[in-house]
Structures are given as C-alpha cells and as structure tokens.
C-alpha cells in the first residue's frame, strides 16, 4: 500500500504492507534508526515520535495511518553543529547511560516542554512515566527536563 507523509520536514512516500507499524517503517524502510523499539506493545515509550506535534508510540500506529501527517523523530530534533538545549541538559545531568531509551525520552520531553514550558516536577514525572528507562533511575532525567524548561519559554510574553 502506498503512503505519503512528511518525516523531519521532508516528504516521503513508501510502499508498505498494511500491517507494518510506523516504528518499523521509520527504522527499516526509511533507515531512521534513532527511533527504538523496546516492547512493541505500547508500554516502554522507546518508540515515541511526534505526529503532528503530539508524542505518539510508533509501535502502536500503522505506517498507513500516518498518511498526510507530519512526523518528527529524534533525528529531526537534532542538528549536526551542536546539541539542542534539551540534549545539552540531558548530557549535563547524565540523564542517559546506555542510550536506548533516550530518543523516546527526548521526543516525549520535547512535546511536553513545547506545550507546557512551565510544567513542574510532578507534571514532568507524570508525563515521563509512560517511558521506561532501566539504567538511570529517572532522577537525572527529571532534573534534565526541568533544567531545559527555560529554552522552551517564549521570549516575548
């Protein structure tokens, strides 16, 4: 089945089986391997991408459902020159170890901070509790997200 959507600002068109998940489409058809798959049943959040701005589990969504959507992956939230403020904050706080869960946390946190740059620690924990990290114990991740809030605040009120 042909499907057309936008990934990280670029239009893509792929021919996929109807049962192919968006995660597998991104990883194996489009070779965007930054999106990880940790459970394939919607629990771990490693596969989180942004679909029209919302954080979505790409293992629970079919590629064909992305027709016409704007999809952003961790690659799309990165650039070559430097880490983004959110990424810098993760690095500064040592909010990652093995890095496998990290793309999912980055996309989830980005969506949260974009919507709610003033969120408090409880809110951060609540939202991040949909993502599993087995290495860090989360304390540093929450600190990193809180510390990155300023970068998301609108400069003019």
């Amino acid at each position, binding site marked *: 089945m042909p499907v057309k959507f936008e990934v990280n600002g670029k239009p893509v068109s792929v021919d996929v089986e109807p049962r192919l998940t968006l995660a597998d489409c991104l990883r194996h058809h489009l070779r965007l391997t930054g999106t990880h*798959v940790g459970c394939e049943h919607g629990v771990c959040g490693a596969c989180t991408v942004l679909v029209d701005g919302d954080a979505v589990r790409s293992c629970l969504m079919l590629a064909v459902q992305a027709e016409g959507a704007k999809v952003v992956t961790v690659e799309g939230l990165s650039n070559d020159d430097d880490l983004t403020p959110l990424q810098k904050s993760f690095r500064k706080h040592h909010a990652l170890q093995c890095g*496998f869960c990290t793309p999912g946390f980055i996309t989830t946190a980005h969506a949260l901070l974009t919507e709610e740059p003033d969120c408090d620690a409880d809110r951060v924990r609540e939202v991040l509790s949909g993502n599993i990290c*087995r290495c860090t114990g989360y304390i540093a991740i929450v600190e990193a997200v809180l510390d990155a809030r300023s970068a998301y605040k609108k400069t003019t009120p």
Partner: protein
Amino acid sequence: MKNTFIGASIERREDLRFLRGRGIYVDDLTVPGLLYAVILRSSVAHGRLKSVDTSAALKIPGVHAVITAKDMNFTDYPAGVPIVPMRLQPLPEFKPFEQPVIAYDKVRYVGEPIAVVLASSVAVGEDALEHIAVEIEDLPPVATWRAAQKNESILFEPTGTNRSLMFEARKGDADTAFRDAPYTRRENLRTGRHYGLTMEPRGVMAEWDAAKNKLTVSGAAKVPFFNRRILAKQIGLAESDIEMIENDVGGGYGARGEFYPEDFLIPFAAKHINRPVKWIEDRRENLMAMNHARETEADLEIACNRDGTIIGVRGDVHTDMGAYMRTNGAVGARNAPQFMTGPYRVPHHKVDSHLWMTNKTPVGTYRGPGRFEGCFYMERLLDMVAADLGIDRVEMRRRNLISKAEHPYKLATAQPTNAHDQTDSGDYHATLDLCLKEFGWSEKSKLGGKLVGGKYHGVGVACFIEGGAAGPKESARLEINRDSTITVFMGTSSVGQGVETIYAQIAADALEVPIERIRHVYHGSTNTVSDGYGAYHSRSVVMGGSAVLVATEKFMATLRQAAGKRLGCAESSVTLDVDKVVAGGFSLPLGEFAGLTAESAFLNHKHTYSYGSHATHITVDAKLGHIEILDYLVVQDVGRAINPLTLRGQVIGSLVQGLGGAVLEDLKYDEQAQFLTGTLADYLLPLASDFPNLRCIVTDDHPSPINPLGAKGAGEGGIVAAGGCMANAVANALQSFGVQPRALPLSPTYIWELVQAGQQKAAE
C-alpha cells in the same frame, strides 16, 4: 601539564551520538541479502519432544529454511547438538545440566528454542511459526524448588536428581558456636524472581564468508572473547576465523552478553544457509528467554551474645535455578550464602546452598547476584534480633560492622569451588555515621510506627559491601593516528556505563594530554586487542582502568624509543606535548609516528570491596498495602571516584533497580510452570513517578590497596541493600500490627496480607 580529569565530572562523549539518535545498536545494522530469524519456542514446560514437522512452513513464500536439531550433527556432542558450557564455576557436577542450543529430546521450560525459521522478513517468519507442527508428550512440570526437591518428576533423568549441586559456605565452627550461644533466632526468608531486563532486547547478526572461511558476529556484549571461544569450539572453527563485533549495547546488568542458545543458532544459521542472518528478540521472548535471577528461599539461624554481637549464622538457601545451568547460573546461588554476612563480623558461618532445577527459564546473574538476596536475609535478621534483645537497630549494626583495623577481613569460603575472599579496606562505621547524619536519622526515626494522615511512617537502615574487579586480567592498547591523536582499544565491553569517557579520562591524565587528544575509545570487539575479559562484577573501571594505566606506560616507553632514535636524542629526554613529540630542542608532530602502538595487560586476582549504607523513610497505607518513599539515601565509598557524574548515575540507577526488586518485580509461573508475566504490563518495572525522592553521596576516602588507581567497583552498591532496607522500613512502619516482612517483593497484596494476619493475631 598536570591533568585532573580523574575525579572530575566530565560529560560523556557517548552522549553526543545517543542523544541525536545516532547510536548504532545491533538492530540498526543491515546488509544486502539479509535473512531474518524467528524462533519457535516451547509452549510446554516439561515434555518429550516427539517430532517437529516443518514441511508446511517451508512452503510459505519467503521462508528460506527452518532449522531444527536434526540439522545439527556435531560429532563432538553425543546428540550432535552443541551444548552451552558454563563460563563461571564450570564444575563437572554441572555438566549434565547444561543447555543444548536447541531442544532435541525434551523441552524443559516455556520459551526453550525448538526451531529457527529463516525468512525474508520478520513478519513472514512469524507467520511461518504457526505452520510448524510440534508434537510434545507432556511430563509432570516442576514449578517450584519444593516440587523439585521431591524428585518425583526429574528434569534430567540420568542424574536421578533435580539438585545440580550444593555449595557450602564455611567459616569457623558454627555448630559448636550455636550449641553454646546464649541467643538464637531462626527465620524463613524469600526473594522474588527478577531479571536484568534490558531496554534493548537481545540481538545477533551473523555473516558467513565461505571464501575466506570467516564468521562475523555482531551484537556481542559483555564477554565477547569468551563467547568467541565457546562458539569456535561448538561450530568447529578456529577462534581467529571468528570476529565478534560489539555495537552500542542497550543495557547489560549481568544478563545481556552471556552466551545464550541464540548465540550459536544465528551464526550456525548464517553458515548453514550461506547468507547473513539477523535475529532480534521481541519483548515477550526476552521475558522468557533471557536469564532469570534471584528466586530463593532461605531457612537461616543466627546466634548472638546478649549485647547483640553476632556469633554465627547457619542454615540453608534454596535457589530455583530454572531448567538449565547456564554460563554464569551458579554465581547467585554461590554468592548468597557466601556473602550474606556483608560488612558484618561473623566468626562462625555454615550455610548450605541448594541449586534446584525446575521447569522455568534458566537463571544467570543479575546485578548484585546473590548479594541482594543475602543482604535481605542478613538485614532482616539484624532488625529482628535487635528487637528481641532490646538493642537499638543502629547500635546493633555498629557493634557488628567490621572495623577499619580488621581489614583484610576473611569472609566465608565456598566449596566445592574453594572460593576464598576477603575485604580490602575502608571505614564502614564512618560511612554508616555519615549516612545517618545526612539522612536525619535521629529526627526521622522518631516517626517510626506513627500513624500520620492515614499512613504509617517507617524508617529502615541497611549496610552492604559490593564485590568488584574480577580478574584475572584485562588488556588495553594505544595507537597513534595520522592526525596526531591517540586511540585507545580495550578488552572490556560497554553496557552503557560510559566507559569511553572514563578510559579517556584515565589515559589523558596518564599521558598528560588534553582529553580531546584521546580521539576514540574502542572496546568489546575481538579484533582490536589480543585478549579481553569484559564487563561484569563491577570490573570495568578497576581492571580496564588499570589496564589503561599500564598500557600508557608501555606506550610512552615505545614512543620514547622511536622518537629518541629518530631525533638522535636520549630516550629519557623525550616528552609528549599535546600533539608533538619533543626532545633536545627538536619537535615532531605525533602523527609522524602514526601506527605506533603498545598493548599491555593488568593482572589481578583480588577483589575490591566498596561499601556503604542505605537509609529510607517510607509511609505505608495499611489498607491498600501501598508504599511511598519519602526519602532514600545511599552513601557509598568507592575508593577513588573517576567520574562523580557517571558514578552517581550508577548508584541511583542500581538503587532504582533494587527498589524494583524490593516492591514491584516478580516473574510468575502457575503450578503447571506456565509463564504468566509475558509483557511489561505484567512484569512491573519502576517508572519515573514511582520513586522521586532518592539521594546518594559518594565518597572516596579509602582507596583500594590492590590496584594502581585505588578504585573499587561501584556499579552494584545501590541494588544490594535495597531489599533489606525497604523491608526493614515496612516492619518499622507496621510494628503496631506485629508485621515482619519475610519475602520480597513487598507488593500491595503481600503487605495487606501481613496486616490482616497481624490484626487477626491481635484479636485472638
């Protein structure tokens, strides 16, 4: 220039790729002509495998082959099917219990591999599984160690027993000491079944080059050199014909990177079909195929003097080993009895450890193997004894902690492996005192047992030691690059701890160059150093770091020699100045010596012991059984902290894993040994909202005397005491009900039951 990278919170170089989605994990690899392996696993816990009919599956378009035991005819093995040998404690007694790479006569657990489908896609392979007809004659399943003990249904019939071994931990003369003891107490204590779940499931990609007779295996982790040895022997190749490649590894925790059946099956499949083959485990498989750990029941007795000083411990530990003795499967069952005394002075020690084979997923190590269990037993006993004898809990510990002057203190010896061990250094009392002070114990402990706002408050304390630095050896090699930078190659592996950064810090300090001059740190692949041991037993910093030190010495000597000759100066006058080699007024770019290399190894047979204390303040909802942590502090002395930032990550990360085991995690089976926890919705892991109030303080006041860095392994201290500390806090909170938790996890149901039982008893 004198550097101080060691001891500084250097941000990790690994992060630059991980944060941008540029890490390369094994499933990110692809090669032309790749086939995908999907594994058919037993849905029966115990049975005789009568037949496997693959004909219908083979007819499905896109299915290239289906491999079963019939395809294997390796003359080195009685049934033609290779066996996975034990890596640690490879005793002859264990031989009959080792796992074949694929089931051929019996299946012994739900999840055991029966067939491997090679298909053009994972989806096609999964479809094909349903078309494989397997005939299994059911045998009575053995679902618990108590059932195993009856020896009615026997997993390995020729052995006549379900007990693969009994370890004996011994010190002093416990029976005599107990006879004369003024006080004893006997308890039954249990720990749940956990595992070192990694967020990245396991995976292997194998490529066979028939022309070059070369097998390349990607997805290696933890112990690639050892695994290469196993694979070479099984598959009939020379070690030099096999290359093991370590990619980025999404977590290890002791479980990932051991040699599993799939580590043979996938390379075999690639060779068999002469095409590259990749297998990536899905989560359900991972839950039933990766090593389980921890499930024990202990019947222990402690003897003390009236002042609380410990005279001895004795008793039995029973471990539910699952269906096979896997590579490191005996470690936990050996450690639990041997190291249960932790940081405490225990003159007499006699604990037998029974390894029971059951129809469950086989066990292996999981961070703090046996130590988490042992610490739970010991800390529970200490609190109960303190209450019996009317001694303050903290005082009870102070009286029994090994004092500074007693190091090296001999721990119990484990037989039949004759495993001796001793502590190295430290001030255990000072760490406990610091922990209590920073925690605010004197204030918080006043709340113990009080009902405030509908919840009972409780505090708990526990002390631990953490063994690290397993020998015998580790290797490092340095090489000069054309651009005048230096690359470090390591025999150790990365499982996400940040070793690239750590080794760069150590190398830069030793060479007195800016850290950026250490261009790359490579590790974990068999093609860059002559030998390597890997990442386990908290050894990467101590063994790998010390290897970097000795390699830099050799490197400098080699460079001095080469440069001295080239510049016509005395070797001793040659120095390294950032990117130049300087001597007698001359200077050359380091890149002039591109390719110059030096490898060296650090040898060590002793263990390091980092140590510390945990303290926690919790509330318990007696009606719902729910626990909330208000404050949790770990204080750990690590000898020498190389990178405080990553160290804190190790302590807090391992603590949360420990808390998972203390209150949430439990792999469950029913009485037919059917696996009940096949998704992450059933096997509960800690989430960001579960334990928000955790702290740690890491000190390095007492360097280890057994390595040049003075460092001690520190990746497991957070996990070891978590179960004991939490259970002690629950007992403290629910003292008005007379509650004494004797099992983990402290699930809401379990706590509720304890409260009910306490109320009933009070009513009688």
